[in-house]
Structures are given as C-alpha cells and as structure tokens.
C-alpha cells in the first residue's frame, strides 16, 4: 500500500464519519419535526443534546462541533417561531438558543477529551503489554542470536514494518532480519541504536513508509532497544561464564587424564623395564624358562602400552570432533569374527557365544572404528565378568536399525551408574582393582554417536548388557545391489 492510498483511505473514513453524523441529525430532526406540536421547544433542545453526545463519543470532536452548529441552525429554523426563518422573536427563545449552543459545544469538548484520554490510556496499556511481552520473551535467553531474533520479531509485530534488521557489532558481529529476503533498496526509515552502559552494541533498522513513524512509536522502539541491550549483555555474560566453566572442566579433565595416564602408562613400563634390565644383567641364563617368560612380558606389555596410547589418541580425536567415520558397506559377522579372532588368546578363560546371523544386511560403518567398539565392549566384559562365564554377542534388525547386544555374566551396575559408565575416566570400582584407562566405553560412545547411533547399558537377569543401535541406511540409501554373477569356471 503506498502513501497516497493510505492518505486517501483515512480521508474517506473521515468523510463517512461526517456523513453519518449529518444523517443522524437529519433523521432526528425529521422525528422532532413530526412531533413538533406535542413537544416543547426546551425539551427538543434538551433531546438534541443526546445525538450530539453520541456523535462526539463515536466520531470525535470535528463531527461533534460541526453537528452542534448544524443542530443549532436546524433547531432555530424548524422549531423556533417564526418557523422556517433564522429570526427569533421571543427573548426567551434567544436564551434557549444561546444556552443550547454553549451546552452543545461544551458537551462535545468534554466527551472528546474523555475519549482522547481513554485512547491514550489504551495506547499506554498496549505499550506496557508489548514491553512486558518483550521482556518475558527475553528472560532466560543465553544466546545473543536468539535475543536478536526475538527482538526483531517483536519490533516487526509492533511496528507492522515491512522489513526489520537487527545488527549486532562487537567481537562476533552478526545480523538478523525479517522477512528472510534482501532489505528494500532504500535507506531504512528509522534507525534505533542499541545502547548499553559500555557503548553501542548494535542497531535496529526499520523500514516502514506508511503510516509515518510517530514519536510515540519511536519512543517505544527505543525502549525495546534498551531492553535488547540488557538482554544482549546478559547473554554475553552468561556465555563468558559458561566458557569459564568449560575451561575449568577441561582443566579438571586434564589433571584426571594426567593422573590416569601416568598411573596406567607406568604399569606396563615398569614391567618392560624390569624384564629388559634383568635380561641384560645376565643373571637369567640363556636357556632358563624365565628368559622366554620375560621376553613375552616385554612383548605383551609393549602391546598393552600401544593400546593405551591408541585409546588416548582416539579420545582426544572424539573430544575435538575429529573422529569422522570413513563409512563403507560392511558385513557385521566379518567384523565380529575378526575382533574375536584377534582376542582369542585374551578370551581363553571365558566362553564367547556369537549370534550374529549371516542374513543381516550390510551396514554402513567404519570398519576399524567398529572393530574398536567390539574390542572395547568385549574386553570390558572379559575384565569384569568372572572366568568360565559366558559372553554373548547378538545382533538383530529392529525398526530399520541394527541392534547389537554384548552381554556378560559379570556384576551388575547400580542403576544410577548405568549412564555414567560411558563417561571418561568413570569407574564403578576403584581404579586400583582393574587396569585400563577408563576410556574404553566412552570411546565406544563417541564412535557409535559419530555413526548416528546410540549406546546404552542395562542390567540383565544374570549380568550386564551393552546395547547399541546403528542406522541401516547411509545418506538415506541402502547398498547397491550386486551385479549378477552365476557362471562358473
């Protein structure tokens, strides 16, 4: 809607008000005219005041005063003798006329003033409501982008502007605008700075040609801007605080890593050092069985050390978000088989039952990372479940996901620990009783989540079960069908 149109429409509505006022006066005059013989002149004058009050109350001072003047004339013309002239003979009628005019004008003005007061009170209330809504919406926001979004939305809703842009300056400047299009090609009609105690944080730009932005609206938008400034400062303070918390947390974590690592790394190192130095000392005979035992210890502990370092690397990669699965279509039974094959010598004291059907579809996973998950889950089970017990690995397709369960007959985990056992360095038992970095399960969690899956632990009737689910599709697709190949050589 352009400017001329807006103006036109308000002019027309104004004209209608006058027309309606005249019609009302005219119809009442006709009524009084019919009843002229039975009604007293003074009574007519009094009765005329009613429509005048109504007109002013509904359509404002202009139509009210105009109607008062017209009524004054019609009253004189139709109802004061001699009829159909504007002359007045009787002195009493002059008094009636003058009093009528004064009363009519005064009533019009009083009613109009009361109306204006009411309108202002309503506008104030609306402003107050809008401000209240804004401050309610801004409460508890800790994100400057959300603040900008809400402020821009409220400014647009209140001002009915065609375009609103919210610019924030500072260390990380950004802009938010409504609607999601490019701004109009011209300069904004109103720019309100967002002023805070420590300087200007940004500005609100408003594009609205018509109706022209009133000073009241400007004031309201300035109030909005200062509310916005407060909310922004609050958000930034909250962010700074949470950053400080993260730093504190990572500091705590680092010392936890250091203590865990130095403890865990030193154990295999001590074994290696002891074995190597006793082999060098020549106190162990060339043919003694102790010699090969020492050599085996060095070899095993070096592998163990390598695994620990690998776990730490994995963890740091998961922490930094650098763990990106290199997905390929893989066969789950193959992965499980390869892990169990490698862990054979570790699992001699346990019985491992595998129920991973050949008919399972291919799954889109990183082969190495998936091996890592199975290795960690199985070695965790081997570590906690007593010898001669059964460890079961089971996989099924459920709800278009693959569901894998690794369960053992080891001790159950108290309910409140079930979720936390996937946290870094979290142990249910004290660290001295079991070896390991305390990272195995959190690495599993990191890998499974990087694959878009979920992992959890639950107590089962005879022990503990680890479960995870993984999507069967990759970018929404299933594996390519194999080309037919039936001929034989």
């Amino acid at each position, binding site marked *: 809607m352009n400017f001329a149109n807006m103006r036109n429409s308000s002019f027309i509505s104004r004209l209608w008000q006058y027309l309606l006022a005249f019609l009302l006066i005219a119809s009442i005059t006709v009524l009084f005219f019919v009843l002229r013989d039975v009604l007293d002149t003074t009574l007519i004058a009094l009765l005329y005041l009613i429509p005048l009050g109504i007109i002013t109350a509904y359509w404002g001072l202009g139509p009210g005063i105009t109607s008062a003047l017209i009524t004054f004339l019609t009253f004189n013309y139709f109802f004061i003798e001699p009829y159909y002239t504007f002359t007045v003979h009787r002195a009493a009628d002059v008094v009636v006329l003058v009093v009528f005019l004064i009363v009519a004008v005064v009533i019009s003005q009083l009613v109009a003033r009361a109306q204006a007061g009411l309108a202002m009170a309503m506008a104030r209330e609306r402003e107050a409501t809008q401000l209240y809504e804004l401050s309610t919406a801004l409460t508890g926001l800790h994100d400057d982008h959300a603040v900008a979004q809400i402020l821009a939305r409220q400014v647009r809703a209140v001002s009915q502007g065609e375009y609103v842009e919210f610019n924030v300056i500072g260390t990380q400047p950004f802009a938010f605008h409504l609607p999601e299009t490019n701004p109009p090609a011209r300069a904004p009609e109103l720019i309100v700075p967002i002023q805070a105690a420590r300087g200007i944080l940004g500005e609100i730009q408003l594009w609205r040609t018509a109706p022209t932005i009133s000073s009241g609206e400007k004031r309201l938008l300035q109030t909005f801007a200062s509310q916005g400034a407060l909310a922004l400062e609050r958000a930034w303070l909250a962010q700074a605080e949470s950053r400080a918390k993260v730093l504190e947390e990572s500091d705590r974590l680092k010392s936890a890593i250091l203590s865990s690592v130095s403890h865990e790394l030193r154990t295999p190192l001590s074994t290696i050092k002891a074995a190597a130095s006793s082999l060098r000392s020549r106190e162990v005979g060339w043919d003694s069985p102790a010699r090969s035992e020492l050599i085996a210890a060095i070899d095993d502990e070096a592998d163990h050390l390598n695994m620990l370092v690998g776990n730490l690397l994995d963890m740091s990669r998961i922490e930094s978000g650098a763990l990106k699965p*290199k997905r390929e279509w893989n066969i789950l039974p193959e992965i499980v088989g390869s892990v169990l094959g490698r862990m054979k010598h570790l699992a001699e004291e346990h019985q491992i039952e595998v129920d991973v059907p050949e008919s399972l579809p291919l799954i889109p996973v990183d082969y190495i990372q998936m091996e890592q998950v199975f290795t960690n889950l199985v070695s965790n089970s081997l570590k906690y479940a007593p010898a001669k017990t059964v460890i079961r690995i089971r996989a099924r397709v459920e709800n278009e996901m693959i569901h894998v369960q690794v369960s053992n007959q080891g001790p159950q985990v108290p309910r409140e620990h079930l979720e936390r056992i996937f946290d870094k360095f979290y142990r249910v038992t004290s660290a001295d009783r079991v070896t390991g970095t305390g990272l195995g399960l959190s690495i599993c969690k990191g890998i499974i989540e990087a694959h878009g899956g979920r992992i959890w632990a639950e107590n089962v009737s005879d022990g503990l079960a680890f479960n995870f689910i993984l999507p069967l599709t990759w970018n929404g697709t299933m594996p390519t069908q194999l080309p037919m190949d039936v001929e034989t*050589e």
Partner: protein
Amino acid sequence: MSNAPHILVIDDEPQILRAIRTILTEKQFRVTTASRGEEGLTLAAANEPDLVILDLGLPDMDGVEVCARLREWTQIPIIILSVRDSEREKVAALDKGADDYLTKPFGIEELLARVRVALRHSSRMQGTPSKVVNAGQITIDLAWHIVKRGNEEVKLTGREYRLLAYLASNHGRVLTHQSILAHVWGPEDADHTEYLRVYMRQLRKKLEIDPERPQYILTEPGIGYRFIADE
C-alpha cells in the same frame, strides 16, 4: 656378502633406525639409512638398493611424495612404515606404488616377513610368475584355472575366480580395495567396496576352514586384503 640384498631405510627417528639396522644386519642384509626424504632419494639413486623401507612422517617431505618420486624411475619394492590411524596416507602411498606397509609399533618378525615377500615378489617380476599357489589345503592352478581344497575341486564363479587369482598371484602383499576393484570389476566400480565384502565372504566360505577366522584371505582393516600362501 656383497650380493646380499641391499636395503635402504628412510626414517627420522634414530631409535627406529638403530633397531632396524641392528636386526637387518644380523639377518645378513646390507643396510643404508637416511633420516630425511631428500637424502633418501639421493641415496636410492646412488646405491640402487633392492628394497626401500620408508617412514611416512618425514621432516622435510611427505612420504607419499617420496614414494611417487621413487616410482618415477624404479620398480624396487617399497615398504611403508606408519603410525596407527593414518589409513588414508597408507592407501595413498600404496596407490602411488608402495608394495606393503607396517604399522608402528611393529614386531620384527612381521618386518622380516614383509621384507621377504617384497624381495621374492620383485625377483619373480623379473623371472616367470609361479603357476601354482599353495596355501594350506588350498591349491590354485593359475594356468589351468583350477582351485582345489584338499583333493576336491572348488566351484567358483568367474568373478570369484578372478578375485582369488588376483589375490593369489600377489600373495603375501597387501592389495588395496581400490586396486582389487579396479582389477577385478573395472575402474568404474573402484568405489564399490560392498562388492568386495560380499565376494570375499563367499570366497572365505568356500575356501577357509573357519570363515569367521580366516587364515588365508586376511582383512587389512581400512586398507584392503592380503592372501597368505605357503612360503
């Protein structure tokens, strides 16, 4: 002693160089060492070794590049040394012409086995390729296209046979997914590792004693496959 195989080791870690030199000299190899890529390339050109052991993480240049520069003029076997989790670089180096890889830390047995395979393969390249490959009970006759397990002939589809034949004629060496796919299916299918997974599984079922714990067709996680034949 002078016709003992000559091995060039390029690695920037002195301890690794020391350990490899000690063990290889012990095994009657001649050993030259270099701690930088450029130095290694110069020594390779000057001495024409029979085998190069190359670390991927060198201070002056990328090991993959050393590999590519060597391949510009020589076909001598190259064995890559790398740390865990650098599958991408390993595959890149293998695709650039490296013959095999070892992940640090590695056992010396493994290193010696890889060296033997690489040297045997390079000598075979010069002579006639073996016609029959034996792996445990399995006999693969590459000339007559016959595969036997014990005395029984194993029925293979055409694709399965081509796959097995490619693996067997490169036995002992690692073959990347891409190279197997390109060789057996064609270059346009080089990304379809799922074909490989399925066919390898079928092959294992037909040939291995326990397909879940294969002894002959081994998976090299993240890299490819390796066929282990009798020495």
